């Protein structure tokens, strides 16, 4: 059995030359000087005969020289201090989440969400009061602005706390009627609220009396305003009774009907008098109490076939009163 040395000796003997592949593979070890004497000699002999490999060897030496220059690289003192002494949480989290691997759309969505949250949080904690946007958190304010026709300068009433629970209808009445009573009513409610909120403030006797007086007056005005509201509420019927009839003796019939209507307390319903004569007809536009409907029907019915129709009309009649428009034509004309 041959020893290892004998085997190597045979392998690198002059009789058995290195193949190009082996010489190339051992080139780095040859340049680094880590080959044994025999192998080094064999590679050296091969390089003498192979120009291409020789150029490769020179390039290899240049590369090592280049790497030696790179190995002189030093880090600065601030960088040395920075390494290991700081641990940024954000890069760590980003790294753990694999942020760089996320699709662009997901990144943009997260960034937009973050921005929205930042704006929302900023808006919540911004001192709006100091920036001129006065508001008391958790309390809605109703401010009534009224403009006097004589005095064009608008006056702004004291804010009304929402807790007073002023009905919307009351505010509507105040706006519509534009009367002083309602205005003072709101002011009174404000005063009440303010007085409730300022219970701890000690008032003088005269102040208490003045408050009481104002309160009573405001109560009266409030009642008056409610009554006015009731009066102005639209009531009654939006109808008119229409009818046509033919009478043989128009003049006599007209006079008779006018007398009957006046006896029933009727009054003219438009600009013309009751029984206004047209060339061949009489025009009856009148208003009577609702209870006389049957009598009116009977009075006109005696001159011929008479039919009344109740039709809707935009003119609203007061409750208990009804309006008629009846035309009595001359029966001798146009038969």
């Amino acid at each position: 059995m041959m020893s290892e040395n004998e085997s190597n000796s045979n392998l690198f003997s002059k009789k058995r030359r290195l193949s190009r592949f082996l010489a190339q593979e051992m080139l780095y070890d040859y340049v680094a000087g880590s080959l044994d004497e025999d192998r080094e000699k064999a590679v050296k002999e091969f390089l003498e005969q192979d120009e291409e490999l020789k150029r490769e060897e020179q390039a290899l030496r240049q590369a090592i020289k280049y790497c030696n220059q790179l190995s002189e690289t030093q880090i600065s003192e601030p960088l040395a201090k920075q390494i290991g002494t700081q641990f940024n949480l954000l890069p760590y989290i980003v790294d753990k989440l694999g942020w760089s691997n996320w699709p662009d759309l997901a990144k943009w969505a997260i960034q937009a969400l973050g921005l929205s949250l930042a704006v929302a949080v900023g808006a919540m904690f911004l001192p709006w009061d100091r920036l001129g946007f006065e508001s008391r958190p958790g309390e809605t304010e109703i401010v009534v602005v009224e403009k006097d026709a004589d005095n064009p300068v608008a006056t702004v009433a004291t804010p009304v706390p929402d807790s007073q629970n002023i009905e919307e209808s009351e505010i509507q009445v105040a706006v519509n009627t534009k009367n002083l009573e309602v205005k003072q009513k709101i002011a009174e409610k404000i005063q009440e609220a303010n007085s409730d909120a300022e219970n701890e403030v000690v008032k003088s006797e005269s102040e208490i009396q003045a408050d009481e007086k104002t309160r009573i007056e405001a109560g009266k005005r409030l009642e008056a305003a409610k009554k006015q509201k009731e009066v102005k509420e639209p009531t009654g019927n939006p109808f008119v009774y229409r009818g046509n009839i033919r009478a043989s003796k128009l003049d006599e019939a007209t006079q008779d009907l006018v007398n009957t209507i006046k006896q029933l307390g009727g009054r003219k319903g438009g600009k013309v008098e009751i029984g206004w004569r047209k060339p061949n007809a009489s025009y009856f536009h009148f208003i009577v109490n609702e209870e006389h409907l049957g009598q009116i029907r009977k009075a006109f019915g005696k001159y011929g076939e008479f039919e009344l129709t109740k039709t809707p009309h935009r003119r609203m009649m007061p409750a208990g009163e009804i309006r008629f428009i009846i035309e009595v034509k001359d029966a001798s004309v146009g038969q």
Partner: protein
Amino acid sequence: MVESLKQDIANFFYFSLLNEGVAVEAASKVFIEINKNLDPDENNFLTIEKSKVVNECQDVFKKFFKKARFGSSVLLEAGWQINPQVDQGLWRHFVRDADEDEYIAVIWSAILKYDDADIAKGLGVTVGTVRHRTGRGLRKLGAMWGGH
């Protein structure tokens, strides 16, 4: 010793990641990981196995590789002091063209001068593999140097 260790780690990431900002981040991470397993006593760094440094750097390199390549590069002011005569463009060209295994082996072996045995243990390969990768990488680098 600590400063030397920091420099090795920082240089490894500087040459492998080609992104200074990410290199600092990665180096800090490795240093913290190594320090976590040691006592605060500085002398303990003398006993640390270089293969562990290689191994830790390799793990962190894989995590930061994509970020360094495709993320934004934050340039640090005077972070690394390199010989002004050295053409850094050649190295960047080499890292982009060579296999990852090759330039990693070249950095540890030819630049940082770590023993092949430590590199092999840290990377989990044989010493022969390390020498093969280093030789192949240097030949590529040399060829680029010649044509540069």
